[in-house]
């Protein structure tokens, strides 16, 4: 796997747009279909918004990844926020503590090829997923 990443600091709502635009650009370079570029941008938007909403600030890392001739993107959204007290509940459709639709995390998991959520109360949350060119 090759490693080469781009870091988008998330400090305010405006950065959500920058993060998803960065993701879309990278996806286009790697040959993602326009549908998959949109899926990726939407997923990044969800995660970046969670960072703003629950932690205030954090960052999104976008990396081009490869296994053999397979190309993909890994996205990590990390923050040093309060953490998620019940991660299992947070992954359920329609559950939200922030007055949202509660579809961000479960939705992202549905459309990503690989999804992980690591959260420590009082220390922060990191959500990572991969999407491959198909």
């Amino acid at each position, binding site marked *: 796997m*090759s490693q080469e990443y781009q870091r988008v600091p998330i400090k305010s709502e405006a950065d959500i747009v920058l993060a998803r635009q960065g993701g879309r650009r990278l996806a286009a370079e790697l040959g993602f*279909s326009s549908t998959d570029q949109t899926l990726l941008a939407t997923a990044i938007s969800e995660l970046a918004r969670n960072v703003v909403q629950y932690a205030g600030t954090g960052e999104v890392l976008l990396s081009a990844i490869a296994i*053999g*001739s397979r190309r993909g993107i890994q996205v990590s959204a990390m923050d040093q926020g309060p953490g998620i007290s019940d991660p299992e509940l947070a992954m359920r459709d329609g559950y939200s503590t922030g007055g949202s639709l509660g579809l961000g995390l479960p939705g992202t998991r549905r459309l990503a090829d690989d999804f992980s959520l690591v959260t420590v109360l009082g220390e922060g949350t990191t959500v990572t997923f991969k999407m491959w060119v*198909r």
Partner: protein
Amino acid sequence: MKLDTLTISEDEVISRKDFLEFRDDDLKALVDAHEMAQTYAEPVIEDFYQYLLSFSHGRSFFQDPVVLARVKQAQKNYFLDLTRGDYGPEYVKNRLRIGAVHQRIGLPFQTYLGMYNWYLRNVANRFFEAYADNPGHALKLLLSLTKLVFFDVGLAMEVYLRTIEEQQEAIKELSTPVLQLREGLLILPIVGALNSARARQLTEQLLRAIASRRAKMVVMDVTGVPAVDSKVANHLVQTVAASRLMGATVIVTGLTPEVAQALVAIGVDLSSVKTAGDLQSGIEEAELLLGYRVVKVETAP
């Protein structure tokens, strides 16, 4: 297979060589053997074509003597490239190009493998003859060559695999035409099994057709789908929902009442999906919703 789409990144080349453990000492061993390779190039090629032409499928490719002579020359260069020491981008491009030629003339991959195996065996014997006093070196050289040959095989295989993928794409597109029956009305007859990849591709195709043909109604006929299980049904529900976001109503036809009941029983929510018994009644309903009225035309006596 178009040649310009046929590339492998430098990183990928490096990682493949790395995995084969193709190192500087391999390169050196091969380059040192180049002089010897030049002496056996001619006889090996002659033997090679004798072997090839002794098989009927080999003969079928080389019936024209002019073509045969040209191919022999190209083949000789191909083999000599193995000891020239330059295994960079030009080499890779050349190997991919040859793979594309093989693929275009319809050379089966097994034949390619068989030919390369013959070559390896033949050259192995020559190595051990040349280094009769130092079989260790002959073996070392053979192993270095084997790494490079497997690198070549990987490149050739890439061409074949990508071609298969491209053909599958083409077949998928062909198998689901989006037909325009009249202004604003599209028909999508789905024939054959519906897996996730095909369902995804089909949804994209339909939505683009809705946009380009400015459709308001779609009749999606699933009579030709062998098994409509919950997975397939969920794909249908998603396609219907996405079409609706674009302002188009979908009527699904060809779902038997038994299948529909079974789907609901296992928890598939079909409430958002309009259905009609068969294609004909689906089209009639769509026309009604579009405001078309079907009238009987009296034929002149």
